[in-house]
């Protein structure tokens, strides 16, 4: 409860400051918080990455597994993204199956990667109609200090760039041995904006998320293409605002992409 009142006060302050184009933590409107990246966080994962975006802390692990392809794409594997807002991450998260917020988070990260075609699903095929690789990307939110979308997208990309494909023998996985890296042809990333009192900022922190009317996440690739968009929150955007966000998304994501060396 006390925690709640503090955030209420901070959120009021955010709305005050934004009138003069200032942010609570002194950042520029279109400035990200510092990013820390730790790949290979979990040896049992086939790929993993821990991202700190300011105080937001996200861990993503990837497991490759073999399953039967979907009937309508017998020569393709696929990806599956899951997200868990762990109860340690915020006083308001509760243990249990994923809620609406976790489901939305997982699905938007999924679309950003999937639709970019960074992973060629046909290359995941093992035996047509029988066996293909499925890439399980699991997102764990350890600390929610705001902007889970971008932090998760960064961590997912980091984990995928770290992913090794298990070695196969007679189409069965040989544990602990690998046949190579998972191929990623591009680096799709989400860039998320908040609209607060009619102003747009990038990478909203917790107090800003509480103050915001609406959120817009845009998935982009280094080829200046968009792969996903998602508006959230109970507010609205004008066309001009959306176009501004698109321009900024290309810029900011290119900056973020530099954290990952060329694959």
């Amino acid at each position, binding site marked *: 409860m006390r925690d709640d009142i503090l955030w209420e006060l901070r959120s009021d302050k955010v709305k005050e400051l934004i009138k003069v184009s200032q942010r609570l933590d002194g950042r520029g409107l279109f400035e990200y918080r510092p990013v820390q990246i730790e790949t290979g966080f979990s040896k049992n994962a086939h790929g993993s990455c821990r991202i700190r975006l300011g105080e937001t802390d996200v861990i993503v692990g990837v497991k490759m597994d073999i399953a039967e392809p979907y009937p309508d794409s017998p020569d393709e594997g696929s990806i599956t993204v899951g997200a868990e807002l762990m109860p340690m991450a915020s006083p308001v998260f509760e243990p249990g199956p994923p809620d609406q917020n976790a489901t939305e988070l997982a699905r938007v990260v999924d679309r950003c990667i999937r*639709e970019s075609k960074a992973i060629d699903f046909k290359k995941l095929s093992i035996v047509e109609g029988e066996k293909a690789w499925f890439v399980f990307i699991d997102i764990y939110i350890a600390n929610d200090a705001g902007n889970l979308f971008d932090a998760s997208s960064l961590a997912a990309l980091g984990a995928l760039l770290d992913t090794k494909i298990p070695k196969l023998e007679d189409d069965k996985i040989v544990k602990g041995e690998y046949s190579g890296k998972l191929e990623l042809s591009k680096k799709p990333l989400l860039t998320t904006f908040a609209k607060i009192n009619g102003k747009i900022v990038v990478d909203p922190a917790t107090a800003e998320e509480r103050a915001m009317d609406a959120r817009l996440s845009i998935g982009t690739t280094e080829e200046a293409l*968009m*792969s996903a968009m*998602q*508006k959230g929150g*109970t507010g*609205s955007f004008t066309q001009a605002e959306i*176009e501004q966000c698109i321009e900024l998304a290309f810029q900011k994501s290119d900056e973020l992409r530099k954290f990952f060396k060329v694959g």
Partner: protein
Amino acid sequence: MEEIVYVNAEGKRIDGRKLDELRPIKIIPSVLSRAEGSAYIEWGQNKALVGVFGPREAIPQHIQDPTKAIVNYVYRMATFSVPDRKSPKPGRREIEISKVSGEALAKAIFVERFPNTTIDIYVHIFDSNAGTRCAALTAASVALADAGIPMRDLVSACAVGRAAGHIMLDLCKEEEDATDAVDMPLAIMPRTKEVVLLQMDGIISKEEWKEAFELGLKGCQQVYEIQKKALKRKYEEIAEEEAKAIEHVDKQLKEISENPELLRGGNK
């Protein structure tokens, strides 16, 4: 697989529509007697029913918001509404659509007038062929009006996208399955053109996006007209019924004034 011609020489699409043409839409408000507001929509092959309840007390108490009504939107699909039988359990897609649709309507409803309450909007899809979330949201907005819930404006939705290089309105399933398909569900409050729902998947440039977005806005305006017509028709029907009732009363009054003994007889 043989090649599909998405847009033919005459500029017509698979189902004969032009690029900027919506599928036929039919909306009927007030179709469910137990709900406080309701609507039925047919949008091409899509069929959906919406029932609205509230504002009513949010239960359990700890979910109540003392500053506004909670908008609880539940989007679900019938098991037989898709080519393969869907599990009766709500899937992740249904959960996500419920969230973003509820957020879209929350902007339009005067939620701040109904603290500690919930406005429940239940949507069910019975047949589908691309664009169900927009059809549902469009019908839900009509059902809210039918329930008499005060709103800033209706919410009008439609999808826009790309197939085989063409930007087009209101994609059908085959178009959504094109290898280069882009799908962008969009919803606005038409009076101010504020965007309350926006999702996109598929890979697209800034320029194409702008073209698509603006076509989408036009589509939403067309949907708005259809919504208003449906509501107007309903109010006219109500007015007609009321007129008949008044006529009936007038007639009775006239009879009484002509035969005062009738009244006296009633008073005995």
